[in-house]
């Protein structure tokens, strides 16, 4: 299992090669990117702040939970922080499993849970200032 938080961009295939889950019949990857800012908006970039060490710890917990639930052979999560622009990659989640259902379900669960638990915060940067993106409350704490 690899869990990494970094400001640098990543190459999804290169990352996935670092793990070779022998016997895996299925590999599912999710790449999340910064959507184009809407035409009328003044947004020029996104700043992602995080809580160092807790992000890694929380992503590891999320990955371990999904690995147990879906019997995944391996999991990779890379999440970026810092300044990002439209089209930039933010997050990569890769799951390996014997069968495709488990790989799909596991990958989707990781990205869903990550969005409510991993301590990242997005700020939209405009020419006049910046606004925090409203976040999600972890289901288990609601």
């Amino acid at each position, binding site marked *: 299992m690899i869990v990494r938080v970094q400001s640098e961009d990543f190459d999804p295939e290169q990352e996935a090669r670092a793990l070779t889950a022998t016997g895996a019949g299925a590999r599912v990857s999710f790449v999340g990117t910064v959507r184009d800012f809407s035409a009328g908006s003044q947004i020029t970039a996104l700043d992602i702040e995080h809580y160092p060490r807790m992000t890694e710890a929380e992503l590891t917990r999320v990955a371990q939970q999904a690995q147990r639930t879906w019997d995944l052979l391996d999991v990779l999560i890379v999440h970026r922080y810092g300044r990002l622009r439209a089209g930039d990659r933010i997050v990569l989640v890769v799951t390996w499993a014997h069968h495709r259902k488990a790989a799909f379900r596991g990958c989707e669960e990781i990205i869903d849970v990550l969005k409510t638990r991993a301590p990242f*915060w997005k700020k939209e940067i405009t020419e006049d200032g910046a606004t925090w993106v409203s*976040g999600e409350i972890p289901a288990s704490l609601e």
Partner: protein
Amino acid sequence: MVTVRCFAGVRETLGLSTCTYALEKPMSAQAVLTAVAGERLSALSAPPLVAINMQHSRLENLVCDGDEVAFFPPVSGG
């Protein structure tokens, strides 16, 4: 002594990034927040989320000597 950290909107609103706070005995995360934020606490539009020792917790959970307690808004990663 506990380490207190604030992130994102909570950090900006309270004007507080990291500080330490000397505890006499275990107290709730809410009490630590009240102690370190002072009057700026009322500027928060909603109660923050809290993590104790980098695990999601609740404001009523106890913080002990040596702990790290963090306050932040709902997360928006991914």
